[in-house]
């Protein structure tokens, strides 16, 4: 079932993301994903996140599909040109993957192979366009396919961006290029989601609000200083002053999930790597 089908059926979907291993030993990641899948509707498999070299998302998504885990395979434009990206999408569909989250990808200078050449032949918008063409039975060069894909296309938007207007313009371009659902970058102030939801409602696409589990005050401060994600002062001080940062992080995450339930189509959880923690958060959010 595609994530859009799940959202339409359940009205509120929960996804969580995990990273493939750095190497061939996938059992730990696979077991964690299977355990977490019991508490969520689908598991995102990241692709070379933070520009680090790892097992590709397609391999782990395929392995998890064999274990009946619904997955959202992430794909980025950093490491492949348009020939390879289209081929990857065909490969993914052939291996049973239904959902693909199309991202631009982090800059190589943020990763562990800083000397690498980055590609960006396409970007997130043109990748979505390519995916739509493949779903329609042709490639970017206009050639017909012997068998079209039927992938459910997702994209990302950052509601914390300041100014927000360029992000919203790009969100519309992604919708026009074929995005059917959005998983946002982490949000801590739910009001920031309103302009994103407005566009989503106008265009009949779905939004899963990004929720990042904070482990410590230091982590919260780092995100505020080094990324396009805004952590409000009250959250920062709650985390920094807490005697039990994990419990405080769980409370903050659970509150955000409850708030999201009121206004959007689901949540996308980040920073959670085991089923016990995930269960504690979800139990508290209900």
């Amino acid at each position, binding site marked *: 079932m595609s994530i859009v089908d799940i959202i339409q059926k359940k009205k509120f979907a929960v996804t969580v993301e995990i990273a493939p291993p750095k190497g061939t030993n996938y059992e730990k990641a696979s077991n964690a994903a299977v355990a977490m899948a019991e508490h969520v509707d689908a598991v995102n498999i990241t692709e070379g996140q933070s520009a680090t070299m790892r097992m590709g998302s397609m391999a782990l998504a395929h392995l998890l599909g064999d274990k009946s885990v619904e997955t959202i395979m992430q794909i980025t434009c*950093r490491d492949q040109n*348009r020939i390879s990206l289209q081929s990857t999408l065909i490969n993914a569909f052939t291996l049973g993957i239904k959902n693909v989250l199309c991202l*631009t*990808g*982090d*800059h190589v*200078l*943020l990763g562990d192979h800083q000397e690498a050449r*980055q590609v*960006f*032949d*396409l*970007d*997130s*918008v*043109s990748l*979505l*366009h390519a995916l739509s063409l493949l779903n329609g039975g042709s490639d*970017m060069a206009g050639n017909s396919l012997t068998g079209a894909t039927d992938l459910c296309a997702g994209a*990302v*938007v*950052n509601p914390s*961006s*300041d*100014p927000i*207007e*360029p*992000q919203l*313009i*790009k969100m*519309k*371009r992604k919708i*026009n*290029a074929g995005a059917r659902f959005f998983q946002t*970058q982490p949000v801590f102030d739910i009001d920031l989601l309103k302009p994103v939801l407005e566009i989503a409602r106008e265009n009949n696409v779905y939004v899963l609000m990004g929720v990042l589990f904070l482990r410590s005050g230091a982590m919260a401060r780092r995100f505020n200083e*080094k*990324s*396009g994600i805004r952590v409000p002062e009250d959250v920062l001080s709650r985390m920094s002053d807490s005697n039990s940062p994990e419990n405080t992080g769980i409370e903050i995450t659970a509150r955000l999930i409850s708030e999201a339930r009121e206004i959007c189509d689901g949540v996308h959880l980040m920073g959670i790597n085991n089923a016990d923690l995930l269960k504690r958060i979800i139990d508290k959010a209900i």
Partner: protein
Amino acid sequence: MLISKRKEIKEISELIGAEESTLILACNGCAESFGNSEQSQLALLKSELEGQGHKVPDILTVDFACEPSLVKHWLEIVGRKTDFDSILVVSCGVGVQTVAVNSNKRTFPACDTVSFGGRIGQAWGDPRCRECGECLLGYTGGLCPLTSCSKGLLNGPCGGSLNGRCEVNPETRECGWHLIYKKLKETGRLDLLERAPLVKDHSKSEPPEALVALRNRITSEGSEGI
């Protein structure tokens, strides 16, 4: 030798829009010094634009469109006697960008720059041109997304822009797409960002015929400094 190709009048006309009065600003620098300047082409361009219904109040020729002080000086002088809404720049990509950042007018390229032939006019530092053979400056406020964005993205900013700075090196680098957005907003052309996805045609960079022409010229004339 600067190798560039003038865009089709249809593309130029669509970019400029129907209601505008457009100044042609032509660079005479590299083309003249390399001996391939063709002034008659400017009159032809003016007449083609007028044929498409555009008003062209003047043609301004500057020695180097990549020299900010020259551009500012001449635009100020022309601005005293002529009203115009936008500027069509006949130059390489560096010239177009220099005009864009030194004026408050909408700026569009008339040419696709294929090769500088080893020399870039009077320019130093930013802005830069990648000689891609398919100039997109008309869609991006006269600021090149290939060189101003650290990822060279064509369809908008990534999610990592922080307070208008690039997440890769916020201390030293502005987000190119933040600059493009600001310029398009200031000049009332955010509509240019709502078009179909831009996808680069890499086959247009360094086309074989242009390289053959360059090689023939070097061989026949023994040009120095190329």
